[in-house]
């Protein structure tokens, strides 16, 4: 009987400890790092339950808990966000405990330990090649589009994050993205290039984000198979084609398409009243291969062991700090 009491006491104690451990804790500052550097607080978007107290453009933003928030005061006292941090620096800071929440690169995903928490959104970013004005021959652009092996990029370099796509908008927004072809066709690419003078087959490629250099190298290699001479140059160089990522800030297709078109310098698409018009507008934007969509990527964030609660982002990629708290551990 005593033994049974002892067991029950132990169970009760463990339950109390567990309850204490999972109970949200008020206070503390969450340290967040990100690659992007929004130009203004409006572009950044103020997280729910917080107010902006410090804004150092392109560098740092501090949000403080709103005591009068409609849903109640958040657990955290403040969120300190460091902007324009490279993925590599973010990874190091997370390892050293200098950051609580960071973006994770595909290579980091490979190395993630099971204990680390990772949140990802729906594919809300588009990675694409955008041609400058120098490449006037559409055959060169089309040949490059056909040469790229998106599957290898997706499965190896991006560790299967996101979705391969030949469309500007992701499948989850439009439902018709699969209709845009994304398969490589080297034979057709070679046939297109065969009719082009060697001097016109040279293309310079720059990756806006150094983290995407590996993808640019792979595109260079694929292009060589199609007999295109692509050379990867520094992002600062005025390259013929740029490997860029752009965020899709809207979940509705017309706004999202307009936003992507504006980001890539394409003509503003006409307002679509139905999915057919929307599809036609998007196809029209992709005519001429000025923009070659590659992959739709999600936002992926990893958190340190100090962070509790979550998730840190919504499926649409918006910040959610009001459900997080931090634990100070010895």
């Amino acid at each position: 009987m005593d033994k049974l009491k002892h067991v029950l006491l132990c169970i009760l104690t463990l339950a109390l400890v567990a309850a204490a451990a999972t109970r949200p804790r008020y206070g503390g500052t969450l340290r967040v790092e990100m690659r992007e550097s929004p130009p203004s607080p409006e572009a950044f978007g103020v997280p729910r339950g917080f107010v902006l107290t410090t804004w150092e453009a392109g560098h740092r933003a501090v949000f403080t808990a709103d005591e009068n928030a409609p849903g109640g005061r958040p657990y955290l006292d403040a969120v300190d966000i460091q902007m324009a941090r490279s993925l590599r620096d973010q990874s190091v800071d997370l390892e050293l405990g200098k950051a609580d929440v960071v973006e994770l690169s595909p290579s980091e995903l490979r190395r993630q330990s099971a204990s680390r928490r990772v949140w990802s959104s729906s594919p809300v970013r588009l990675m694409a090649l955008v041609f400058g004005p120098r490449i006037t021959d559409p055959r060169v652009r089309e040949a490059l589009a056909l040469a790229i092996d998106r599957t290898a990029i997706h499965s190896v370099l991006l560790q299967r994050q996101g979705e391969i796509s030949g469309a500007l908008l992701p499948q989850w927004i439009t439902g018709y993205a699969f209709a845009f072809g994304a398969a490589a066709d080297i034979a057709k690419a070679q046939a297109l290039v065969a009719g082009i003078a060697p001097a016109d087959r040279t293309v310079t490629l720059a990756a806006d984000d150094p983290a995407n250099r590996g993808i640019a190298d792979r595109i260079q290699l694929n292009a060589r198979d199609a007999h295109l001479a692509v050379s990867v140059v520094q992002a600062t160089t005025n390259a013929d084609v740029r490997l860029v990522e752009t965020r899709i800030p809207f979940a509705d297709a017309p706004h999202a398409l307009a936003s992507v078109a504006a980001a890539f310098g394409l003509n503003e698409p006409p307002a679509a009243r139905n999915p057919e018009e929307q599809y036609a507008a998007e196809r029209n934007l992709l005519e001429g291969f000025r923009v070659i969509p590659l992959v739709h990527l999600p936002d992926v964030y990893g958190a340190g062991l100090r962070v509790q609660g979550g998730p840190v982002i919504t499926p649409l990629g918006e910040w959610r700090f009001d459900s997080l708290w931090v634990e100070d551990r010895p």
Partner: protein
Amino acid sequence: MMFRTRLLLIFAVAVAAAVGMVELIVSSRARRAFENMEARRVDAMVRQFDQEFHRRGEEIVRTVQGIADSARAREIALTPDASAYLSEAGTLASTDRLDLLELVAGDGAIVSSAQWQARFGYKEEWLLSEPDWQPRTAFLRREELPDAVTLALLAVRTVSVGEMKLYVAGGRVLDREFIASLVAPQGMRVLLYRNLAPAFSPADLIDGNGPAESAGQLRPLVEQVEKQGKEALGTVCTGVTAETFHALPLKGSGNEVLGVLLIGNSRRDLMELEASMLRTAVIVAVTGILMAIVLSWWATARITRPVRRLAESAGRVAAGNWGATVEIATTDEIGQLARAFNRMTHELVEQRERLVQAERVAAWRELARRLAHELKNPLFPLQITVENMQRARDSYPDQFDEVFREGTSTLLAELSNLKQIIGRFSDFAKMPAPEMQPVNFNELVTETMRLFEAQLVKANIRASAQLDPAVRPVPADAEQMTRALRNLVLNAIDAMPGGGTLAVRTKAVGAGVRLEVSDTGQGLTPEECERLFTPYYTTKTHGTGLGLAIVQSVVSDHKGRIAVDSEKGKGTTFRIDLG
């Protein structure tokens, strides 16, 4: 060329040739010694290269084998989805200090590439061609990198776990660091040409410091080795910068020439030694030549002095002094020559005197014969006439007066003839010196021809005067030249007893004049032509034989020349050149 100069040249050439030959022999032997030494040094260098090459190869094999034996390699071989190992080769290559490392799946698809990470998924078919890589040593291979092609020493090992297979292909680049690790002795250098491009590329020729200088000069040698696939030898540059290169092909597993090892030997030492020997030879030769000049000067002075005296004496003899002799001071060949020369001049003088004497006697005989001949003709009528007069006085006194009158008339005529003969001899004997004044030879010819008009008609001779209007007055004695021309015309008339053609021509020759008298007579033989101008010589039955002798004398006094062209049966032409 003077004998002294010739002797001097012979001495100089002999000294220079001797010195040159010695220099050539010494230089040749030195060169051979250098070449032997160079061959030994090259052999040593090649051995060193082979050792280093094999050492590195074994090291690479060990490293690659170590990676293949690792648990990580087995894990990769076992994992169907290799995408998680994209950067694995880079990590392993960095850890094991390999320049190149590729992990390749059993189907040949690259799992991870250290040298070109973006090539994952591409096939390395060449790995599948070898059924068993285990016994293979390291080998050379041309490896493609993202921005270049390089030459690498590679080794391949396989990891087999059940049916799963993984190829581990790793190696090191054959670059300047490899060349720098070779220790070349003084005066030698090692270059490596990496045959990476279809055509020769200077940038691919490297030494221990990077791209080699003056790579273009080695292009023919490299291309020769690439083409023939065997060792070759060549020299670049000249002088002290000359360098001999031994070029050895470095072949890949398919026996293709992937690189060329060039071992260069500077020829500076040899060139400097040869230059030094040449300088010495030149100094010796110059000294020898100077000594030869002095010696030959002294020797030739001794030899050529009597020869020169002989030459001077010979010159005097040639000038007419037939009695010139040479002083005899030696008993050698030159002395014997001088003695012979003196004997010769002595003989010449005696023979000349004898000849003059003989000619004088002959001349007197000829003169006597001619005089006797000329005088005999008039004397015979004189004798007959006197005898007739004596006979008439004795036998026919009544007719004596008539005979006397006719006889004295004949006597006077023959005496006149005798007087004329004696006058012609007298004229030839006392030919006066010409009085020179400008003479128009065209006028002189015209006037002379006019004098003979009647005589020519009578002799049935057709005469023509062909006068060159360009002839200008020439200094001459008009009277003597007229006399000479008359003699020639008379001579022509005599040569054409049956008639013929006489042509007298003038022609301007420079500032002088040429006068020609041609007949169409019976002509002369060559022997007659030779003696034609000899005094008292004549081919005619009458005449003194002085006509042409007078012509020659006149022409000679005018410093002119006379010549005769004649052909038997066709005629004769006399040509006089004056001025």
